[in-house]
């Protein structure tokens, strides 16, 4: 059973994308924790640790990703956690590359079919367990 936290950091209130992903992952047989909008990096990381999730999905549309993502990674490191992070939202390609170098597993832009996200997460764990 894959347990995923879907979280939305920052100030933008458009959570339709996050909800669609949460719903799609549920239908793909995962247990999905959805924490709603306007979460701080501290809330996200503490929730991921307390819930002992296998992966975190972060949705950001506000443009603040280069501030929020490094902070989340830093907090996870402080807690000795290496839980994989997937990011979705409005992310310029150059920033997506930078984030992947920081350790983000994958960055999904607008129009990505949900099946691609599901395969991305499932694929990660298939490889991880081999």
């Amino acid at each position, binding site marked *: *059973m894959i347990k995923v936290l879907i979280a939305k950091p920052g100030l933008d209130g458009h959570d339709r994308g996050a909800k669609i992903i*949460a*719903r799609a*992952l*549920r*239908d*793909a*047989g*995962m*247990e*999905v*924790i*959805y*924490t*709603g909008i306007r*979460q*701080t990096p*501290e*809330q996200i990381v*503490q*929730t991921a*640790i*307390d*819930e*002992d999730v296998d992966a975190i999905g972060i949705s950001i549309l506000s443009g603040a990703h280069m501030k929020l993502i490094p902070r989340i990674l830093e907090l996870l490191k402080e*807690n*000795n*956690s*290496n839980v994989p992070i997937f990011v979705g939202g409005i992310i310029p390609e150059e920033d997506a590359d930078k984030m992947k170098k920081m350790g983000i597993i994958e960055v999904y832009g607008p129009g990505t079919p949900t099946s691609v996200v599901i395969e991305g997460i499932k694929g990660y764990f298939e490889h991880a367990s081999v």
Partner: protein
Amino acid sequence: MQVSDSQILDGVKSGDRKFFAKLLSICEDDSVRANRLISNLEKRTAHVIGITGSPGVGKSSIINAILDKSVDKKIGVIAIDPSSPFTGGALLGDRIRMQSHATSKNFFIRSFASRGALGGLSPSIFETCDAFETFKVDAVFIETVGVGQSDVEIGNVADTVVVLISPDGGDEVQMMKAGLMEIADFFVINKADNPISKALLSKLRNILEMGKKDVPIFLTNSITGEGIENLTKALDKRFSSILENGLLAQKRQKRVTSHAQSILRKRIDDILQTVKTDQLDLEEIQKAVIRKICGNL
């Protein structure tokens, strides 16, 4: 991340949330290992409080409001949402109402999927409650799945059952029905800002007067916090009184039986999955299961 038994035991003893979180995952995935680990840890009796009621009645919100007023206590929250009967997946959305407490050092909120368990609970509910007692919390709130009239399992797990009713929950006859309405130690009429809530209060009082059990009724509004302090005080008072009058000990003794029943049911379910039922008739299926149980002893 794989963690050893000794890492878990040392981590939980030192109050490390990360290892306690792992212990809860073990409760969900491997009850035999969980029970073994728990038996090696010191427990402290916590007040186990069940919060139950229909979907959307305000179970998560009232727990959030209770947490707002309980900053000096150590509290665990077990929030259960349904698993899909088709895919096994689940959307665990109870936390969304409690996220302001996500970083509180004194509170530990954990979401569980029902994973096929009946009665609005999760298959690991007994292990999970025991685990929280090894984490030395003062109280554990169990938020059931949004339930119907016959989901009374929570009465076998919790020391105190709080049944939430929505102001538009129905007429007197609904309240006279057996099942959920009988297991309440406290009733809460939530969403007290709704004018109908006062009418419901008097209806519920009338119905309760017909019976023998005196059940206190609280009017609350989880958004404004109205009525919450009355409820938390009453919960504290009940805990000390059931500790003193032996009711708690009695309930815990009965809980052992319910726990055994839950383990046995799960074992039968697991065995049933391995029996090739399509080639057997009803009688043969039962015999095959019983043979397997006896073989495993």
